[in-house]
């Protein structure tokens, strides 16, 4: 078992004449918290979407858990062991909080229509397991009391946490959080930070795409910075904070930013 859970090598993605990702490489250590940052339009989301099967890469490759990651459709990604949350929360609003997490178990269970209609022992056992695991996860994120409520009735921060629980229900090896702190107040961010740290210490690798620099610098062990589709820096939080290219990308340098000529 290699040290690295996820490796991207020379990933390039073009949309017509625009190179959204230009020869991007990075690797993520097992059970670590990895931050992917960059200014708006840097290619973070594109990277994320190629990794999760929404787009196919033009060049380069991904390796995940020592195997080439070759997903053809978005639903295969969860199967492989990558779960994600969404920048703009995408819960199943009319379903209960518990059911949202139960949906996450879908990929690890197999009962079909026959089992459902005839309530076979196997299907009932599986259903009981799904329910129990979902309750455990709600406990984990501290939403047990709201299990029966429709998820759209949750407060903003709670919805974010529920999305994380739903992702964890797929038993991922890596969970990718797309701007989880967006729109959160300071207290909610602290709760989120503790949750992220707990997830990593429980053995699930975290990939964090985030704009909240304080959160990223505090929680990540390793950070990669994208700008105009290229990786401009890669290192520990303290290295990134001192990196000239990063400072220039975020604050603007004496010269025109890279890529605009």
């Amino acid at each position, binding site marked *: 078992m290699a040290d690295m859970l996820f490796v991207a090598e020379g990933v390039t993605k073009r949309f017509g004449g625009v190179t959204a990702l230009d020869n991007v490489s990075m690797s993520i250590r097992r059970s670590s918290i990895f931050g992917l940052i960059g200014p708006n339009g840097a290619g973070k989301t594109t990277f994320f979407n190629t990794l*999760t099967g929404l787009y196919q890469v033009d060049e380069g490759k991904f390796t995940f858990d020592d195997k080439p990651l070759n997903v053809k*459709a*978005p*639903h*295969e*990604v*969860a*199967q492989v062991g990558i*779960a*994600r949350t*969404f920048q703009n929360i*995408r*819960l*199943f*609003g*009319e*379903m*209960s909080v*518990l*059911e949202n997490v*139960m*949906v*996450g*178990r*879908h*990929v690890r*269970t197999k*009962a*079909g*229509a026959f*089992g*459902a*209609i005839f*309530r076979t022992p196997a*299907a009932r056992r*599986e*259903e009981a397991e*799904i329910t129990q695991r979902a309750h455990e996860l709600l406990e984990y994120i501290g939403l047990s009391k709201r299990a*029966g*409520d*429709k998820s759209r*009735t949750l407060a903003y921060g709670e919805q974010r946490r529920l999305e994380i629980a*739903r992702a964890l229900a*797929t038993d991922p090896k890596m969970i990718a959080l797309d701007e989880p702190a967006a729109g959160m107040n300071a207290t909610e961010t602290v709760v989120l930070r503790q949750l992220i740290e707990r997830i990593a210490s429980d053995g699930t690798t975290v990939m964090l795409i985030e704009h909240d620099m304080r959160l990223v610098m505090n929680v990540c062990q390793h950070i990669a910075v994208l700008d105009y589709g290229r990786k401009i820096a890669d290192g520990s939080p303290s290295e990134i904070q001192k990196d000239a290219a990063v400072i220039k990308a975020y604050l603007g340098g004496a010269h025109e930013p890279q890529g605009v000529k």
Partner: protein
Amino acid sequence: MANLMQDKKKQIIALAVLGVFLLILPFAAGALGQAWVRILNVTLLYVMLALGLNVVVGVAGLLDLGYVAFYAVGAYTWSLLASPHFNIHMPFWILLPLGAFLAALAGLLLGTPVLKLRGDYLAIVTLGFGEIVRILMNNFDKVGLPWSETTYNITNGPRGLTGIDPLTFFGFKLNEGMNLFGLPISGLQLYYFVFLALTVLSVIGVSRLQHSRLGRAWQALREDEIAAKAMGINTRNIKLAAFAFGALTGGLAGGLFASMQGFVSPESFGLLESVMILAMVVLGGMGHIPGVILGAVLLSAMPEVIRYVADENKQEAVFGMVLVAPEVLRNLIFSLAMILIMLLKPAGLWPSPEKK
């Protein structure tokens, strides 16, 4: 815990009361006239249809305006294989499952090309599908082959099929009625009990499906397809499953319809019929089975009740003249009810509860 036990007890009592009511109902209706029993039977068929459509529209969120096509497939399967038309007389225990199966197959046939469509676009294509099936039934009385002059009459076209076999158990024809220890039970009343049994089975089947892994996946699909995919749900497969299961119920109801009526024609399977079934689902409360049943009962029984209560004679007696033709009144009240529902209870009369 004690509370839960009490709830359970209440539930059992409520179910028992409902059961007794449903068993007495056909006799009470029969006392008023057999036409009322027929209304009950048609209502049960609509409950089945609404339950089936609810799987597709209410649970999986796929707007289907051609649902009546599956009803037609079931009805024609029965009519062609149990009537003098081809002089084939198959037994019900082959025909009912076969009709349901063929309808499910039609569901897959419809589902496959529309996998990527959503909302309005899906509605248009399904609407077209419903019309295609009806027009096929209408025109398959002169099916010719390019290399020959002879034509074959498959569906008997707009004239429809007559003399369709009734439900027959071991040589006993249900439509003839029976005498049970001095209690006369009419044919329609016997049909009622068969329909009731199959409706109860449909309710159980559909509700178990809805509260299963597959049912949750359908709901997830309805709520957010992208998130559902990210959870590892193969949306293609579960969409097809939704179409197939919805169609299955429709096909079953179709076969029963043909066996009761003894006559089918393409006229019974028009767009308006699809719209009616959809209205039942929406009016009752999409995705909530008790609501859908309520919607089906209200919308299928109400027009008939209006027809009887406000017919020409009664209007003359009360107002001294016929104010509105019953047929018009029916449509009027209908439209009014739909508008009121849209304004006052957009989630339906009996939507799923906020807290589970």
